[in-house]
């Protein structure tokens, strides 16, 4: 009988730890984190249930992220609830140790899901926090479909990349007079802002691009139905990129192929800490990795015609 009482007690006490009444939570929409010396500046945008006052931005400065959240929680007299969070903004000045602490915080926080978009900005201010998250997400997807330089990436993707490759590519945004997407920034083992060409190259290698357009000598070419197949043979990595190009001039095909080959080759030569390198080191391969880039543009002539009356 005692066992039954114990089982019932355990079952009923299980619920107590998860009790989370909606009147005691503050729903966080986005978080910004920057460092200032030894301190963290944590910006928290809390969604207001009052329709007149839609959102509130709170700023806390503490030695750890947890401390900032605890202080803010005490101030609001509510638990900060991160499941509905959809944007994490990281500042440009974070280093490896800061990232470790940030990742630990979000992995340990029970209400965090890690499925929110993560971006890096040059400088965190109210302007970027006040910007609608949907607008930022739209900007990222637009930049992918127009010039192919960034994609919407979540914290889970970043952590996965870091665990696998010790490097992750996070969208980088500049906020001066306007908000501009500036390609990727590498984080963790390497902190480097990539150029537009490098950002395009990594998107091609990671098979992120389906449709995009490139500008070569002031001519704009639109490529569609793109995909990448990567093959690894010992120390030889084969990058095969396939795309369809609808145009009027067949010679454009060669221009595009040459241009894309050039930027991918240049990326692999100049970025030794890239997507593949860590994996190959991990499995005991030598340092002389050879890249073989094959760009296959399928030229499709535009069907022209005239309309007769």
């Amino acid at each position: 009988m005692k066992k039954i009482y114990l089982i019932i007690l355990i079952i009923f006490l299980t619920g107590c730890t998860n009790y989370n009444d909606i009147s005691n939570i503050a729903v966080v929409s986005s978080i910004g984190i920057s460092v200032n010396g030894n301190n963290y500046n944590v910006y928290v945008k809390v969604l207001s249930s009052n329709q007149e006052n839609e959102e509130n931005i709170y700023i806390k400065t503490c030695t750890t992220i947890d401390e900032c959240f605890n202080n803010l929680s005490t101030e609001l007299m509510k638990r900060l609830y991160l499941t509905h969070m959809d944007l994490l903004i990281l500042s440009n000045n974070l280093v490896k140790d800061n990232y470790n602490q940030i990742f630990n915080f979000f992995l340990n926080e029970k209400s965090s899901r890690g499925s929110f978009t993560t971006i890096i900005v040059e400088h965190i201010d109210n302007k970027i926090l006040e910007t609608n998250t949907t607008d930022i997400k739209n900007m990222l997807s637009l930049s992918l479909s127009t010039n192919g330089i960034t994609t919407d990436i979540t914290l889970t993707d970043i952590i996965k990349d870091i665990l696998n490759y010790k490097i992750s590519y996070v969208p980088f945004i500049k906020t001066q007079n306007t908000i501009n997407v500036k390609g990727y920034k590498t984080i963790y083992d390497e902190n480097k802002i990539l150029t537009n060409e490098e950002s395009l190259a990594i998107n091609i290698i990671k098979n992120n691009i389906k449709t995009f357009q490139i500008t070569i000598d002031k001519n704009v070419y639109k490529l569609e139905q793109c995909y990448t197949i990567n093959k690894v043979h010992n120390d030889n990595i084969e990058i095969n990129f396939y795309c369809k190009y609808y145009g009027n001039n067949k010679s454009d095909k060669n221009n595009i192929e040459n241009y894309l080959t050039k930027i991918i080759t240049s990326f692999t030569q100049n970025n030794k800490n890239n997507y593949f390198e860590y994996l190959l080191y991990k499995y005991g391969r030598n340092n002389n990795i050879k890249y073989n880039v094959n760009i296959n543009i399928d030229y499709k002539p535009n069907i022209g015609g005239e309309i007769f009356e």
Partner: protein
Amino acid sequence: MKEEILNRCGNSTDIIIRTINLKNNVIDCIYSETLSSSSAITNYVLKPISELIIENKNIASTTIINLIKNLLTGSSINELKSIDEAIKNIFLGYTIIIINNKNILSIETKASLDRGINSSSIEVSITGPKDSFTENFNTNLGLIRKRIRNNNLFVKSITLGNESHTKIGICYINGIAEKSLIKKVMEKIIKINNDIIIDGGYITEELSKSTFLPQVNQTERPDLASFALLEGKVCIIVDNSPTVLIIPTFFIDFFHTPDDYYQKNINTTFTRILRFLAFLIAIFLPGYYISVTSFNPTAIPTNLLLNLIEQHTIVPFPAFFEILIMIIAFEILRESDIRIPNKVGSSVSILGGLILGDAAVSAGIISPIMIIVVAISSISALVFSYNSIVNLIRYYRYLILILGMLLGIYGLFIGFGILVINIASTTSFGFPYTYPFVPFIKTDILDSFIKVKSRQNKRNPLLTKNRNR
């Protein structure tokens, strides 16, 4: 003898004694003026006896009993042996004739105390027949016989209730109903030792003691009782009860309504699925709401969550108490709506439902979403006309609510498990409650939660497979 009868009836004012002197013979007619028909007494008793007075003959005391027996024109005349029997017959509406303080005759002179055959008020059908059972045993039996004109429709009568002497009729179709079922029903009914049986509910309670789930179905519709008999079930008619009991009953029976048999299969399927959804909503919605708002706000979309938070901030109680208050208030409202006369019923509904609800929200006692949750859950329960399933929904709603409050979504799954175990472990008179799913009967699945095709004959394969055993 007449004095003894009067004394034993407490000299009740409705017991009337009419004494007729017939030269050397004395005839006492005793009857209850409330239970007997005065015109029947005049026509079948007094008129024939008055003919003897007119003839003014000397009749020997030994022959008068046979003479009166032949003279009386009533359909049922019996010679009684004791005063006990005589008293019992008086209260059945018979007139007792005591001849020379020795012989006792009883003649049927029952008055009709019925309200007549009315349309069904609870199990309403849009297209099907409208007649319903009444409080009269014979009328109820007649309504069934009218539909099954078959000599195999057997009726076994017994009297139950030590004080009420209520007539009970056990009906079944010989050759279709399983003999072991009939025997089991008879045995259980004979064992009932109540002082009083006023309604079929007394029998239901006695037969369903062992389980929480309803094992006996009640219907006020003769067409449904007839369907049940043709399936191989047993029907119990209780005198003075406007409902007939159907044995055995299965969980799926509560999802079927009279209209299911009178409309297209596609329409029936749609409404049955709707009823099943209503059953789940009625039981689980309040518990789900509590578990989601107290344990798993993650499951709520952001905009809705903000809306809910805003509504909750003005309410001083935890969500559980808020919903409990609302459910109890609704139960009280429903109960009062049933009891009060129809003429004031609508005003109570308006006052209780609209004005009080609105005032409670304005006063900040209840949040609007809570009213929506409780209203949807309660309206879903109203889809079912059988009171027993409404009670089942009610108890499970409280159980799931408490589990949801203590354990969140996890509690909801535990509650669902308990419900399934409860249903699966129940048997109705030895037949599994989960028919036709367990045991799986392919032909009947097509007429369960859905209705793809009806059986050509109405016989239930589960009930009739061992019918001769």
